[in-house]
């Protein structure tokens, strides 16, 4: 199975099962139209005949021979026999290794598109996690992590800086427990930046493995959705703090991350605004929203969004060719040292190897399920845990998703986000179509960037 496409002047063939990417000249690209997956050593006469009006015979045969060489090396039209073994490995129990710790169900912003209902997750009351609950959450993670050494804890909200003293105490507690249990905690934090201070910046840069700083881009775009409690925009109160933060971050990971909506379908300008501000690690995500919302992405918006992704890809290529650098999270793709195929069969770990913990200690499959009673998995306070829900999430993989079967993107998105699929698609095994289309476009762009930068 191959996926061939033209983008930005490049002819690209992705061999889906091997993961090999080939950049082709026009003749080779055209020849692939006449190969159904089985290749003979000699170039078939009908291919020569069909292409003889455009190319001469010697060229056609020469191209065919190169393609045949790739075929022989299992780099073109490779089979997927290896999936049988990989599928067996999927049946093995996965320990829980990552946690979204909802340190604050409260927020100092009132973003209009917030999936957490501006911080309280539709609970009707705002709350902060106590140190005691946080400790039990960390103990729960260690207990459930089996032989996994690398454990991840993301301090999330609401706004985690509203409960920063507990964050610091929990980092200290985790550092103490990791020595006792031979684990390696990676703490991360996701913040809107409003409460960042010099002390907090110093602490976060010293202790957090990765940091996500929320910003939607241009001031007018950011302030339309990301509002303070008094209704004013948040842009002016965070930009200098982010610059200060990033200037001290060194080589450690961070992302300035935005959300785009139907209100700013020209979001490439927002991402480039981030880059112009000096931020090198960037991301911008399509809003997750009910289709009734006027800012929700619609099917009819896709052509514009695709064009914006192409613009971003071209910007990255141009800047890198000029010796400058910035990253867009969704165009980062590792063609040679990326994750193993077992990981790729079920990328989203929610409910299986990843859980979210509320300030009260309740356990949910991920942050997007918090507050949905039918998805409550238990509590770290009384040690209850519903393994049936875990098994349901563990069983979700691309081999069980009919839409993924013949999709070229299946080893790159791994069947999509479980929450998107359940909340907006047709269920855990039925991916959300708009997300699929966006992801496919991003992968095409990411591969094209690799092709351009390989010249």
């Amino acid at each position, binding site marked *: 199975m191959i996926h061939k496409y033209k983008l930005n002047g490049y002819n690209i063939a992705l061999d889906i099962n091997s993961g090999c990417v080939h950049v082709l000249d026009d003749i080779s690209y055209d020849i692939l139209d006449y190969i159904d997956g089985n290749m003979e050593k000699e170039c078939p006469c009908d291919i020569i005949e069909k292409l003889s009006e455009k190319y001469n015979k010697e060229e056609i045969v020469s191209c065919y021979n190169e393609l045949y060489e790739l075929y022989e090396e299992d780099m073109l039209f490779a089979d997927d026999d290896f999936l049988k073994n990989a599928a067996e490995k999927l049946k093995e129990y996965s320990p829980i290794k990552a946690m*979204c710790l909802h340190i604050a169900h409260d927020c100092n912003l009132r973003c209009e598109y917030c999936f957490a209902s501006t911080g309280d997750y539709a609970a009707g009351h705002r709350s902060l996690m106590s140190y005691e609950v946080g400790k039990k959450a960390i103990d729960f993670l260690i207990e459930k992590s089996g032989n996994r050494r690398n454990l991840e804890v993301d301090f999330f909200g609401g706004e985690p800086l509203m409960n920063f003293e507990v964050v610091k105490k929990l980092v200290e507690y985790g550092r103490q427990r990791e020595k006792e249990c031979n684990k390696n905690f990676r703490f991360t934090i996701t913040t809107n930046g409003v409460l960042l201070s010099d002390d907090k910046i110093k602490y976060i840069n010293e202790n957090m493995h990765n940091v996500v700083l929320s910003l939607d881009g241009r001031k007018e775009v950011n302030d339309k959705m990301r509002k303070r409690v008094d209704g004013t925009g948040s842009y002016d109160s965070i930009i200098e703090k982010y610059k200060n933060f990033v200037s001290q971050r060194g080589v450690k990971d961070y992302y300035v991350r935005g959300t785009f909506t139907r209100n700013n379908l020209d979001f490439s300008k927002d991402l480039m605004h981030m880059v112009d501000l000096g931020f090198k690690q960037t991301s911008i995500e399509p809003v997750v929203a009910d289709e009734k919302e006027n800012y929700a992405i619609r099917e009819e918006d896709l052509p514009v969004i695709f064009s914006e992704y192409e613009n971003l890809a071209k910007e990255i290529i141009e800047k890198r060719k000029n010796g400058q650098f910035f990253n867009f999270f969704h165009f980062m793709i590792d063609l040679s040292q990326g994750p193993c*195929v077992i990981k790729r069969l079920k990328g989203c770990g929610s409910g299986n190897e990843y859980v979210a913990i509320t300030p009260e200690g309740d356990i949910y499959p991920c942050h997007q399920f918090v507050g949905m009673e039918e998805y409550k998995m238990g509590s770290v306070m009384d040690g209850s845990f519903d393994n049936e829900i875990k098994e349901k999430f563990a069983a979700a993989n691309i081999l069980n998703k009919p839409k993924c079967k013949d999709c070229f993107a299946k080893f790159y998105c791994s069947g999509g986000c479980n929450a998107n699929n359940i909340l907006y698609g047709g269920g855990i095994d039925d991916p959300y179509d708009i997300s699929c289309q966006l992801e496919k476009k991003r992968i095409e762009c990411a591969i094209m960037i690799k092709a351009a930068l390989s010249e």
Partner: protein
Amino acid sequence: MKHTKTLNTKTLKETACKGGCGECQTSCQSACKTSCTVANQECENENNK
């Protein structure tokens, strides 16, 4: 090769043999939180490199 340029030679099949250690980052713990991108995750299994 004259007509084709291959950008990567390591195949997914090779990773099936030694993969599955589970030590790599969970997809959602990076920058997405509302989507899933896997191909940019770093493999942390030294035996698989």
